[in-house]
């Protein structure tokens, strides 16, 4: 059987029936986008691979709980978001000291070091976690606002306002960088 041709929902149904090949097909189909999701929200390359793997392990554990009522990607990114939140909790002290800035105000964030990576990625990393995930899911992963609201379990209006807030902040950080240079 050519598993890669089946839809996500069909593949999940097969996984629920015990077909591990269907699970492989799901992994092949989504591992790349999931990995990039973690990378874009500021996780290092090595850890992004681990987190992607963790998402698929959870997907397999919760396979029987999946019901094809919503889009498969909503279910998958809900798991991914949970994995990321767990990761942040576990590494809270380390992250705040290294990869994510501790600053509270935008002004402080502007002077954060941009030395190695692209300005845009760095500006993204500077955003607070709740804004960063929305930008990545919406712009980069192209998920709909409603899907994001379902994944994050927040109202649709909150997604909209956070998105605006995030774009505004990125823009300001980039402007400040240009001004500095």
């Amino acid at each position, binding site marked *: 059987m050519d598993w890669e041709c089946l839809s996500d929902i069909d593949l999940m149904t097969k996984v629920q029936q015990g077909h*591990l090949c269907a699970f492989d097909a799901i992994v092949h189909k989504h591992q790349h986008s999931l990995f990039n999701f973690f990378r874009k929200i500021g996780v290092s390359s090595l850890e992004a691979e681990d987190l992607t793997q963790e998402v698929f392990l959870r997907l397999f554990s919760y396979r029987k709980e999946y019901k094809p009522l919503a889009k498969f990607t909503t279910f998958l990114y809900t798991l991914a978001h949970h994995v990321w939140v767990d990761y942040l909790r576990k590494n809270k002290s380390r992250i705040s000291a290294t990869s994510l800035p501790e600053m509270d105000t935008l002004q402080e964030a502007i002077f954060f070091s941009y030395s190695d990576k692209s300005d845009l990625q760095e500006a993204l990393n500077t955003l607070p976690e709740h804004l960063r995930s929305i930008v990545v899911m919406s*712009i980069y992963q192209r998920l709909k606002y409603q899907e994001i609201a379902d994944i994050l379990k927040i109202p649709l209006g909150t997604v909209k306002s956070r*998105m*605006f807030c995030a774009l505004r902040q990125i823009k300001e950080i980039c*402007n400040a960088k240009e001004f500095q240079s």
Partner: protein
Amino acid sequence: MQKNFKAERCPWEQEISGYILGETSSSSIEKHLEECFFCQEQLIEFQELVKNIRAMPEENLSRDLAPGLRKKIASTAKKQKVSSALMLNKRRILMMVVFFCVIFYFLFFEKKAQETLFLGPVSEKISFDEVIEKSLYWLAKNQEPDGSWSAERWGGKKGYTIGVTGLALLSLIKKNVEHEKNIKHAWDYLLEQQRRDGLFGPENSAFLYNHGIATTALLESYSIYPTETIKRSVDKALQYISSIQNPEGWWGDSSNISLSVWQVYALCRAYILGWKNAEKSIQRSLLWLASMAKRHDFWGNVDASIATGAFLFSLPEKRYSILEKDNKIKHTLQALLYQPNHKIEYYHYYFLTHAICNVFQNKSNDYIHFLQKKLLEKQVQAGVYRGTWEPAGISGNIGGRVYSTAMATLSLQNLHSSYFFKK
């Protein structure tokens, strides 16, 4: 920078990002964009930003994750088998521990709880007997020389002395051995007030309260001291109640349930004590009450009506009526009990405690504890009024301190008897 931004804000600004991402309907925003220079500028900036984010280079995984995942799934399945066997044993042990703890609790702690019922805040535990003793002592001490308890002297209204005396007598009757002298003195007063037609006192605006309460108090007295004098008085009093009952079943004013409540209560107690001819009056009154409940969706929104109505509805003697058990009364009581900003109104408390103990028999003691706590918080702990309850609410201003103390004591006695009844 932020200051400038705020100054230029437009109410449509949040829609711009949605528009770029295809989330907002285009027609309305496009119309706005034609007019708003700020949003036009923002649109251009955001469009560029979104384009740049989307153009950010993608990275490739260093390896295919599928084979590694297969291995992990296989090893997890093995571990799960082993751990589920261990968990089963752990659960068994845990269940045994819980089982023994429950047995231990019932053997030791519950026995202690039965011996002394503690009321009120944990910090100042006071035994039930102490609370009641204090209030009864005050009542006994302040009985008038004629055997009454004056409503007027303690902040109430003049015409209510008979009713207030009846309530004080009702509170004392449960401790009849200690207060026999006061009880007998109170009978003398009440019997002296009874007219030839059976009514206690004059036919003033309070006569239905006075008469109903006095009759109930004498009936309770008769259950302990079945004397011929009390019986004759009660005979006449009951005859009077039946004679003034409206054919529809109510007394005085059909819109005021609390006027009828004491008459029905007296009739029900009389029936239990052997006055079987009270049955027709009881049936008529309970039928009227059922129609009131139906018409006003369970006695409307007035607390007094709900409490007294619920009390009547929950009387064990209701087997004489055609009323059927209804879950709605439970919800009504719960709502009344746990309403926010609960005001102290001893009149309601008296009927609520009765109703709750009747309706929630064999259920949790939560309601009982809640009411106990409320009542105990308000008892005066020192000074001349030690052991009393401050008059509160409309009825408190009418009945005064004797009334509030008697009603609070009776409520606690209701709860206490119910607590031990359940145990």
